[in-house]
């Protein structure tokens, strides 16, 4: 029964990891940007949510209504300025620039806020509540909700990309920027839209993590970015549903590892990550892995 519990907890945690990963996957899939500041931006989202909750006293759960648009706007602006400037100088430069951005964000948070850990929605019933199945399996409402949000976000993204005008433009630009230009499409604007969407999901990831656990200025790189990368690589680069599968595989591996020995939790996750890299480097869902 303990093993069943580990697998269920792992699957639900996978929803959180998928939420971490889908923005990273989208940025890479559309503009070939490996955003090393991805985790730090999620942490910024969490801090913005903290500020919004402190000022407005709205429940933590609803802070996304304000935080997601703010982060989306930040995404558009960052893409049109810093990241586009880096892209114009080459794909490798985007690695350096987003790495620099990551360092600046972490140092800035340490400098201007502090190194304390924070949590969102402490004491709210949705954050702390849970229900039981049998005697051994206890499922937190929050984890279930995060999983549902991840599925809804991925479904929404899938629908947006496949049927909407902007979704079609995003796919066209991802295929061939020059050909898109010849059709009158300003790919830089389309990149901005894609970044706005990615940052919106990053905001959700930050809020979800803030409610699920504790965050501090360094959480972005030491937890969120690493798990996001692992989920993307396991699932398959550039595949949206691959991020959910990757997240779930990572989550289940961690929980099973923890079941064997508490100290093995993260090790088990990374062993699966390495195993996938060795055996199936294109990821588990290989269909759209190649660009």
């Amino acid at each position: 029964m303990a093993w069943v519990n580990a697998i269920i907890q792992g699957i639900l945690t996978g929803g959180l990891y998928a939420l971490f990963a889908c923005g990273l996957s989208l940025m890479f899939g559309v503009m070939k940007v490996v955003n090393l500041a991805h985790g730090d931006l999620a942490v910024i989202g969490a801090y913005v949510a903290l500020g919004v909750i402190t000022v407005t006293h709205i429940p933590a759960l609803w802070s996304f209504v304000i935080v997601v648009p703010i982060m989306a706007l930040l995404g558009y602006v960052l893409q049109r300025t810093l990241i586009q400037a880096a892209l114009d100088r080459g794909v490798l430069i985007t690695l350096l620039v987003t790495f620099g951005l990551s360092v600046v964000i972490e140092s800035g948070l340490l400098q201007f806020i502090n190194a304390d850990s924070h949590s969102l929605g402490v004491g709210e019933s949705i954050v702390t509540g849970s229900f039981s199945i049998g005697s051994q399996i206890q499922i937190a409402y929050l984890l279930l909700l995060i999983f549902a949000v991840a599925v809804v976000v991925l479904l929404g993204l899938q629908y947006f990309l496949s049927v909407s005008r902007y979704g079609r433009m995003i796919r066209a630009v991802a295929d061939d920027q020059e050909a898109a230009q010849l059709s009158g499409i300003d790919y830089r604007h389309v990149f901005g839209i894609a970044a706005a969407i990615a940052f919106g999901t990053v905001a959700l990831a930050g809020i979800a993590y803030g409610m699920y656990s504790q965050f501090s200025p360094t959480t972005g790189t030491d937890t969120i970015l690493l798990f996001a990368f692992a989920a993307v690589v396991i699932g398959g680069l550039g595949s949206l549903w691959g991020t959910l599968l990757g997240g779930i595989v990572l989550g289940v591996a961690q929980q099973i590892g923890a079941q064997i020995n508490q100290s093995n939790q993260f090790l088990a996750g990374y062993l699966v990550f390495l195993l996938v890299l060795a055996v199936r480097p294109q990821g588990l869902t290989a269909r759209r892995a190649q660009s």
Partner: protein
Amino acid sequence: MKGDGEVGGGPEASGASRARGEQSTPLLEVRDLTVHHGQLRALDRVSLRVFPGEVYAIIGANGAGKSTLLRTIAGLHQPTGGAILYDGKNMTKVRPERRATAGIGMVPEGRRLFGSLTVEENLQVGATYARKGPWTIEHVYELFGWMRERRTQRTAQLSGGEQQSVAIGRALVANPRVLLLDELSLGLAPVVVQRIYAMLPQILATGLTVLLVEQDVSQALRVASHIQCLLEGHTTLEGRPSEVTAAQVEAAYFGLTGAAAGSSGEESDTLWHGSTPSSRAS
């Protein structure tokens, strides 16, 4: 499929030839265009004037700068000197997507379709910022009969000729005033090339002006109302197909100097027996 005689030299083409002159204004004008690829000078002070309704063909061997010329007109390269005027307006500094929406359409070399999109989605992307005009996705389906049935297929699954047709359709649905065609024949079987060029009169009948680049000289001479030959970035020949001799074309294409350069029709039989310079060059 139409025979060769019906493909080129139609009423549109000869009418456009008559329109050439000081009184009419060119739709597209390139003045002393110089383009560098790094240290290499790909184009050296090339000029051309394309009048409304014309089919203007740029011919030349590999590396002559033909594609660079079209890509610079479309805005994909920035020139180091010279100017590009469209409809009397200077477009030299205008971004490529603005040129496209202003009415400069292009079918790029190698087709460059959106491979993960379906045929119809490719056409829809082309129509995203379409100008008002006669071309719709429906019209493209009428022009290429096979396309409607296969509109839900990804373009990666199509043959080369079919992909070229989709690329032409994608450019047409934007309703350009001038259409740049970059090496339509590249990588296609001769019979497929013939079939695609046979579509040209139907496309021209909607009032389009065409500037095309072609390595297949005989094909270009058949459809063009005006030709220009490039050699290593320089203009070596310009005129109507009826005015230039085969020997002049050959000399301009290969850069033969001396006897051939100023030659007239009498010497043309020596090197010119229906085979094209491109077929010999390859």
